[in-house]
């Protein structure tokens, strides 16, 4: 056979193999019962009716993480505003240092 014919032949065989596999296999006995057991363990309303935020913050680990991080983030922000504003000159503030601009917003008025 020429290469093209060999390739076509091999492709046909693989195609048939795929469909044989498809027709021959079955799920093991007791499979459905196992799935139903899993399904019963899932609390449908919790998993489906929650909003994105509820799902995230309903997670105790994430909630704790967010709870700890929020004061940290605010303190850090304040720290940068104060130190950034004090240490940088006015020209730097005007150029667009966000910490400096925030300081101006706080102190100038």
């Amino acid at each position, binding site marked *: *056979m020429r*290469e093209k*014919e*060999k*390739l076509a*032949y*091999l*492709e046909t*065989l*693989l*195609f*048939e*193999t*795929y*469909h*044989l*596999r*498809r027709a021959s*296999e*079955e*799920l*093991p006995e007791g*499979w*459905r019962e*196992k*799935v*139903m057991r*899993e*399904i*019963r363990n*899932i609390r*449908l*309303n919790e*998993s*489906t*009716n929650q909003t994105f935020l509820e799902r995230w913050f309903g997670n105790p680990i994430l909630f704790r993480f967010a709870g700890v991080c929020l004061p940290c983030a605010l303190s850090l922000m304040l720290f940068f505003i104060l130190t950034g504003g004090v240490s940088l000159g006015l020209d730097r503030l005007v150029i667009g240092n966000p910490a400096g601009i925030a300081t101006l917003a706080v102190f100038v008025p």
Partner: protein
Amino acid sequence: MTENGEDALVIERILNGDTDAFEILLKKYQDTVTKIVVAKVPYCHMSEVTQDVFIRAFKSLSSYRGGESLESWLKTIAVRTCCDYWRAKYRNQETPMSSLSESARHWVASACADGAKNVLNGDSERMELREILDWALDHLSPTDRMVVLLLYFDGYSLRETSMALGISIANVKIRAHRSRKKLRHALVSLI
């Protein structure tokens, strides 16, 4: 009552807390889903992936809008679950591109030399062919693998393939073209 209507009633029961009603859907669509999964993942993982399909379907049942039939909705979930299976496999490097065994290479050479041979009669020959098929498909990315299987092996249309995988028709065409080239290249190296 139409089939969609019957399914809608069952879904309503499930969403109202009657979890056991899901077994009705499970019985009804088990074969449909299995037929999709069986040829796309290794046999040893078939039941596990089929289970994942139904668990995913159960979890997102409230998002099923009823515009399409439940069967095609489940088929889409099945195809995407198979695709995710391969993504996870590739990511975990559990199946690095396998090298083909010497016996399989030898088998190809002899089968091609004798084209008239009825090769699908023996179990051992089927095993060799399965190995070759898996080896050839291992050359493709998870999405490309699914494109090839759906489009060429399962006979899905371009539109159906794009819907099942959530990619555009143009993307399906490009992936199909590239994958065909890759597969041909791999198979030519065997003969």
